[in-house]
């Protein structure tokens, strides 16, 4: 656990409670999850109780208290994607990876999440892998998309 990086993130914000969510977001993108050591460090530096940091980390969907895979798959189930067959795409991804939504494959390659709208409704159903948007996905295309990533 590289606490120096955590310190650097904490230093980049004013030392007050208002910065909490912002620095947790940065820690999330740096480490891909919120390690408990980081929570303790924020507690020491900002004097915010651990319970409160934990509450925030567990409330917001983007923050993860468990390590996530190398690639994050987000299948959109917003309304537009829902009516265009988003749930079937999610089923197909679950089926291909043999995991349920919210889980990570045992080789730490993929984490699968559902997301409530990525805002590109015109292209639904949409599937986001890391930063790549895949629009107008069909059940047949899911496998091809997953094969792009290693």
């Amino acid at each position, binding site marked *: 656990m590289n606490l120096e990086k955590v310190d650097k993130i904490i230093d980049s914000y004013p030392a007050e409670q208002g910065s*909490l969510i*912002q620095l947790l977001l940065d820690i999330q993108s740096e480490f891909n999850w919120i390690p408990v050591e980081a929570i303790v460090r924020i507690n020491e530096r900002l004097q915010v109780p651990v319970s409160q940091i934990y509450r925030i980390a567990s409330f917001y969907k983007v923050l993860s208290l468990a390590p996530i895979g190398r690639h994050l798959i987000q299948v959109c189930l917003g309304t*537009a994607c829902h009516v*265009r067959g988003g749930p079937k795409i999610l089923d197909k991804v679950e089926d291909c990876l043999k995991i349920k939504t919210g889980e990570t494959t045992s080789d730490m390659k993929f984490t699968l999440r559902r997301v409530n709208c990525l805002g590109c409704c015109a292209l639904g159903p949409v599937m986001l892998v890391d930063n790549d948007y895949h*629009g107008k996905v069909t059940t*047949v295309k899911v496998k091809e998309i997953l094969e792009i990533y290693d």
Partner: protein
Amino acid sequence: MERIKSNAELDVQRQDILSKRDQNKPCIAICSGTGCLALGCNRVISAFKEEIRRQGLGDKVDIKETGCPGFCEKGTIVVIYPEGIYYLQVKPEDVPEIISETIKGKKVIDRLLYTDPSTGEKAIYESEIAFYENQKRLLIGNNIKIDPKNIEDYLALGGYRALAKALFEMTPEQVIEEVKESNLRGRGGGGFPAGRKWKSCRNAPGEPKYVIVNCDEGDPGAFMDRALMEGNPHSVLEGLIIGAYAVGSHEGFIYVRQEYPLAVENVNIAIKQAEEYGFLGENILGSGFDFDVVVHRGAGAFVSGESSALMNAIEGKVGEPRPKYIHTSESGVWDKPSNLNNVETWANIPLIINNGAEWFKSIGTEGSKGTKILSLVGKVNNTGLVEVPMGITLRDVIFKIGGGIPGDKKFKAVQTGGPSGGIIPEQYLDSPVDFDELTKLGSIMGSGGMVVMDEGTCMVDIARFFIDFLCDESCGKCVPCREGLDQMREILNNIVAGTGEEGDIELLEEIGGIMSIFSLCALGTTADNPVLTTIRYFRDEYEAHIKEKRCPALVCNDLISYYIDPAKCTACMLCLNNCPVDAIDGGKRKIHVIDQSNCTKCGICYDVCPPKIGAVNKISGEPVPPPPREEERQIKRGKREIEGV
């Protein structure tokens, strides 16, 4: 860059930008909003850069990466200036031809133009495309002309003129009066008059005061705020600074959801540039007014888009709403007077200041003035972002602008206002888009999401979808919302699973009624809308699910079966090879049969069966016909072989 210190200097700066620009120089504007990004516009942009470099045109042609012009269905969108030639669905391989034919040869490439599906006519310019023709694009019309990462583009179009007017020609009270007079209503969902909100914040005791932009656009199926924030962030910023001046605030927040990385990036760049030019910071434009703004990213919680919850999130707390009898305009962020408005509301402010309240009032209906951006999505031909004058009918939006329903399907209903909105059936299609009229129908304007549904959409399933969403997003602070949603979800799950009982509909209505009265915030008080409106207009569908165990739209998995019609099957092996659970029996020239006991109803067979054969059927409420006898399953060579399969 030296900060601009007066109104006159701003004019000089603008003239300077315009004089440096050659109006006749070709400019290729490429949409790089999230929609086109998902369609691969990055590859189109690199192809243009590469081709321009290869042909040595580097100083003769400009490339502009712009925000979203709305027609996402036809992305990647490329517009060639100065002519304004509108190319749709541009692929990287089209790029060399565009450069040699259009840029150099000044010829239009027919293939890339918009073709009117009914007349077959080609449209060269934006104004000729039916999708745009019926819109009134005051807020998003400039998106295709602006590189959101370059403040000069905004200035060239007259940007920050309204700010200068407010600072030098109007008192804060006059600004508030103008906004009040315009009758601008909040675009985030509530529809509360913005001017009244501003006034109560200005008059509230306590310092400092805060102004906030709400860009926590969590409604599934809505992306108008994203398009404004990504495509024209300075218009929002300018509105915010004017608002800060009006209410007497020196510190502001822009709250953007983390799921919109490009919006976060662009607004941060915009803030930095506005600081450099003297539109933010100390002594703005030499007027003596100071204002700073900070971006806060949301961490993914629908409820934190509610105004008081959002303020909690800004304080670094869990984004849960506060009791609403305390107005946030009096006690908001850190218990100080805070004025929060939605992105689109803020973007309207410069227009009102520049053109006056009378002009703004000339657009729209009695109770709803101005335009509204709608995200037109779902089962409609022209999906995308549309901006219309208030008062336009739903029918015009869906059929004239949206181009109707794809395929030969029939329109069934339109869902407006996001998850807490309602469903409006066909008989009300001539109702106007107006805050009050939509409320009368049991729905809401909300932030402007408009999801079109065709006959293939099950209304019970859709109600369950919204309740499921709201159930996950309810913060759990108040009992009616937390428990009510959970109970509703259970009942709806039963109904779609075929285990619904008599009395379920009445029970849903009762729970909904209680939630709408006793919940703490708007999430709970409106959460019953999707259920109650679907019951109100599609009660027969609920009854079919409960009494006949039938899903009329053929959607609910537990109530449908997939069945291969032996009279149509050509034994092409497509469904058989794609079935993930090997539930299909058959072979070459042997009619395929689905083993119902193994079928998981994933629907892949239905998707892969070629439409012109259409042998895979969905049935509901009736027993699956018995499979043909073994000897009837052989297809003789030549018999029933269909061309091209």
